[in-house]
């Protein structure tokens, strides 16, 4: 095995082992979005109607969004492990090893990606209860979407965390970014029906494409507008992940801070 992969996989494995040895983190990332989904969904009930999804209640409309939210929270907060590693000294030990910086970033991103992926996929268990039916193709597509979304969001989290040295600082920054990101992602209300300026903002939000792709994938069989949006949205997410990952590697490769 190449040194690059050996190092990356090692970091990845550590990340996953740590996550599941801290059970409260698993619950912590899962519960808040689920509560929001259940209360809002039950609250709005049938008094809500989205274009292209007439007849679906709010619980059903919001369902792809809640998967995206769980992935968002898990992925972004997995990046906090990087800050903890920096604070505790673990990262120093990794940084003085001959592993390339790109391998370190890759291992860290894989770690968060798999956490986000597993948590997101866990939520699929709820699908039958709101009447969503899967085919083999739609399941494969949904898994691919959740994976792509986790990767992009984790890379974004790692990028934000690379230069941050306190967990509380990271929280402050991420609250500032995450709040508009999840409110304006199309998870809560459809992109199409909003004001024009908001529509533009939502189109600039990478999470919008994750929600859109997921929602489409659930109804891909129908062949309607909602379903057709899936593939283009996936490409946007892939592009987002690739660009952010490359930018993070470049940042990590810059000579160490001199001040």
């Amino acid at each position: 095995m190449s040194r690059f992969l050996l190092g990356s996989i090692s970091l990845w494995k550590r990340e996953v082992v740590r996550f599941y040895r801290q059970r409260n983190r698993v619950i912590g990332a899962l519960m808040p979005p689920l509560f929001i989904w259940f209360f809002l969904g039950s609250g709005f009930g049938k008094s809500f109607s989205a274009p292209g999804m007439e007849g679906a209640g709010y619980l059903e409309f919001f369902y792809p969004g809640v998967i995206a939210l769980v992935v968002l929270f898990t992925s972004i907060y997995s990046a906090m492990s990087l800050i903890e590693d920096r604070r505790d000294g673990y990262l120093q030990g990794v940084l003085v090893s001959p592993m390339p910086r790109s391998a370190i970033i890759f291992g860290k991103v894989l770690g968060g990606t798999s956490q986000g992926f597993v948590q997101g996929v866990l939520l699929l268990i709820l699908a039958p209860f709101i009447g969503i039916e899967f085919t083999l193709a739609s399941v494969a597509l949904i898994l691919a979407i959740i994976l792509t979304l986790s990767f992009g969001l984790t890379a974004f989290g790692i990028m934000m965390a690379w230069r941050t040295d306190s967990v509380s600082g990271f929280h402050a920054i991420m609250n500032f970014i995450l709040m508009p990101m999840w409110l304006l992602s199309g998870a809560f209300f459809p992109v199409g029906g909003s004001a024009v300026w908001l529509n533009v903002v939502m189109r600039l939000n990478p999470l919008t494409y994750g929600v859109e792709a997921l929602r489409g994938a659930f109804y891909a069989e129908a062949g309607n507008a909602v379903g057709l949006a899936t593939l283009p949205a996936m490409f946007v997410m892939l592009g987002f992940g690739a660009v952010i990952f490359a930018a993070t590697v470049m940042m990590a490769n810059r000579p160490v801070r001199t001040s």
Partner: protein
Amino acid sequence: MSSLPTEPAVEARNLTHKYGDRTALRKVSMVVSQGSLFGIVGPNGSGKSTLFRILSTLQKPTDGSATVLGSDTLAASSLVRQKLGVVFQNSILDGKLTLRENLLHHGQYYGLGGRRLRERVDAALGQLRLADRAKDKVETLSGGMRRRGELAGCLLHEPPVLLLDEPTVGLDPVARRDFWDTITRIRAERSMTILVTTHLMDEAERCDRLALLHQGEVVALASPDELKADMGFDVITIRTTQPDALVNEVKAAYGWNARTDDHGVRIEVEAGHAQIGGLIERFEGRFESITLSKPSIEDVFFLRTGVKSDESGDGA
């Protein structure tokens, strides 16, 4: 390793480092020869942490350069990293993982894998007397064991040069002595070069060669014995219940350099062996003990810088 035996293990050439306006290192040059135990000694704020970060490839100096076995720490950083084992002040072990898991990960970061890695992990655990704790989570180990565990991690890729940054900070005296015994043993078994930073003078005494660092500059570069011989005086220490009176008497009668310190009265005098008899006669019945010794590295440091090595300077 394929390096020439005459090549320095570590060399610093005119290293200068500035944090904004503050100069942490000023034209620091030193040569660490292969196989030596080299100490970088200085109080907090003397610049030794900055020097350590530069040598371990984690920081880019403002000016000057450093090499490890001929490879530049900046231009050939990944080569340098392969040749170095580094023990930091902070633990590089993950408390949530077992010691063995930690070592396996660490070896993988250095490109080791498979059976070769497992064998080396077991060998290192054995050499550092940790085999029976290998399956315990690191957070349950004592400070001394953790230090040895870090050392084990750093030895897996068999580096020719070991860098230790204040390795005994936070350890109790027993663990501290134990750690140094381990270092001495490993050095003999693996014929490594070891470079250690410390502000503890008894640790400095163990080194073959020292660089005394003060306010970012090297104020002395020699073996502990050479540094002491340079002082030109011996130290006579008198333990007594009336130190102030004795100091005044010594000053009045002999004109020697005398003062009180933690132990009682401290007298600096040339050829102490010829003088101690007279002091014993003179103060008979007024002291608990009287001892003659060579100056310590502490004394050397004080004489060269005017500050005690365990006093903090400004900043870290």
